């Protein structure tokens, strides 16, 4: 089936009791049993819930995987991945990952004697250098936030396989519409479904996808044993949103590309970061491993003062953390989302005080460009 057909139908059958075409919200914690141990496959909602299962099957199909295991947030999903490991294991992680990922690794899981190396995964040689006999997982985020640096997934999947360690990709930024890491040999994909999958800024959620039977059964075990499951209402909302994922992603990208091109030619913008621009240093890799370039554009305005004036003067773009919703957002990473990264480290990756990240929404392209233009003039 095609992506759009899957997004509307995969995992969803009309409700057998009423024929309702939309999967109902099974807002129940438990299920009545006919006799002791005789039931319809559902015992307790931490373990099984039909709305949740419909969502998991749906996104598994979109990622071209076999299994989906959903969680109450992206970070709960990421935590479940680390809970698959043993004390003493070592994880190599992209050095420019989402700050919350860095925080849970360094401040929570390190206490349980899991070691983390933060490495520039855009260079496969550096990943090889960081491998040790105890390396059990390679955790990659591509493109990174907010510098939009890419890692070569096919090359990294190969390195991980040769070493016998699991490869994981946080695919939140691209969504399965533009990037499907499982097809490139990656073992596990994780999402903050809070972002593009849900896309309407009204749910926090996470999900892991895989093709591997054994990994899936370990993850279902953790999902139930640890218990960070999403509620049925949230599952319903995400399931409703994936029906329009392709439509939204195409619009996000069209607008983002138009804005990136506009910014590239603007005298007040010092630098634009967008993988869809031929000037992006990894444009060739972007074309090879993604089928589009996504909705996030970053730009350097030269100073904190200019960035502040820009953020204060936009009218359609809202100043807020998060990304991936239908509405356009502007973020100042150095102060808002990446303040925990030491300044020296930030500057090394180009994350200056003048950097602005735009999560380009699906409003009218002309309105967004006019808004960005007037805010640049007012700087």
């Amino acid at each position, binding site marked *: 089936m095609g992506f759009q057909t899957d997004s509307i139908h995969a995992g969803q059958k009309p409700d057998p009791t009423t024929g309702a075409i939309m999967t109902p919200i099974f807002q129940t914690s438990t299920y009545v049993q006919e006799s002791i141990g005789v039931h319809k496959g559902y015992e307790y909602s931490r373990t099984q819930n039909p709305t949740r299962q419909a969502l998991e099957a749906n996104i598994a199909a979109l990622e071209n995987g076999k299994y989906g295991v959903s969680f109450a947030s992206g970070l709960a999903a990421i935590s479940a991945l680390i809970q698959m490991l043993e004390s003493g294991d*070592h994880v190599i992680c992209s050095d420019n990952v989402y700050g919350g990922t860095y925080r849970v690794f360094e401040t929570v899981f390190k206490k349980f004697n899991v*070691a983390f*190396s933060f*490495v520039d995964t855009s260079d496969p*040689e550096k990943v090889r250098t*960081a491998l*040790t006999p105890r390396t059990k997982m390679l955790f990659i985020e591509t493109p990174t936030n907010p510098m939009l640096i890419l890692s070569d997934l096919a090359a990294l999947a190969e390195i991980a396989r040769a070493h016998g360690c699991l490869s994981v990709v946080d695919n939140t930024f691209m969504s399965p519409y533009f990037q499907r890491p499982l097809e490139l040999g990656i073992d596990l994909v994780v999402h903050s479904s809070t972002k593009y999958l849900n896309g309407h800024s009204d749910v926090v959620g996470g999900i892991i996808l895989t093709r591997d039977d054994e990994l899936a059964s370990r993850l279902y075990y953790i999902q139930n044993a640890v218990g960070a499951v999403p509620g049925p209402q949230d599952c319903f909302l995400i399931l409703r949103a994936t029906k329009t994922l392709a439509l939204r992603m195409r619009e996000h990208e069209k607008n983002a590309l138009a804005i990136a091109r506009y910014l590239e030619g603007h005298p007040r913008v010092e630098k634009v970061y967008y993988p869809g621009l031929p000037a992006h240093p990894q444009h060739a890799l972007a074309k090879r491993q993604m089928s589009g370039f996504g909705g996030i554009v970053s730009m350097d305005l030269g100073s904190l003062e200019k960035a502040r004036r820009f953020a204060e003067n936009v009218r359609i773009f809202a100043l807020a953390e998060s990304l991936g919703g239908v509405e356009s957002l502007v973020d100042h990473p150095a102060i808002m989302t990446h303040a925990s990264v030491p300044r020296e480290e930030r500057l090394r990756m180009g994350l200056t005080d003048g950097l602005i990240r735009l999560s380009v929404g699906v409003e009218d392209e002309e309105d967004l460009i006019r808004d960005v233009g007037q805010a640049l003039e007012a700087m």
Partner: protein
Amino acid sequence: MNDILEIPVFADSQSWEAWFRECSGTDQAQSYHAFKHITWPVGPDLDIYFYLVDHFNEHTVKEALSAIIPCAPCILFCGNHLYSREARPLNNMYRFYLSHFRTPVVWLTPEEFLEEKEIHADGQTEEPDYVPLTELSGRALKKAIPQALELIKQKIQKD
């Protein structure tokens, strides 16, 4: 499952690899990008993994060992000479190490060379913690490494 101690090793010549293999009772050393890995099955419940660092490149050391060093019980510096201010690669590496990491270091040096303690103009010596080796051999290492671990244990208890 066995307990595993990971011990990074900086040595001043290739010859040490043979002595570490002899000490571990293995002729196998698995090559990684930045080091060679030799397993010493110390007892039924404990393995020691030695990581013999290949390149004294500061960048590589940081990339390859930054997650290992903080968890290691100690780091071994193996040299024919104990640390001095002389510009030898092992001494330079030791200075780099001290400025970047805090895991304790033990030097393993043949006892016949231990007389060469350097006394500076200010009357200070810069003697690191060390265990003398009776000879350059796997047998001597086998004796010295538990002593090195004990030395660190006592030091930590004292602190």
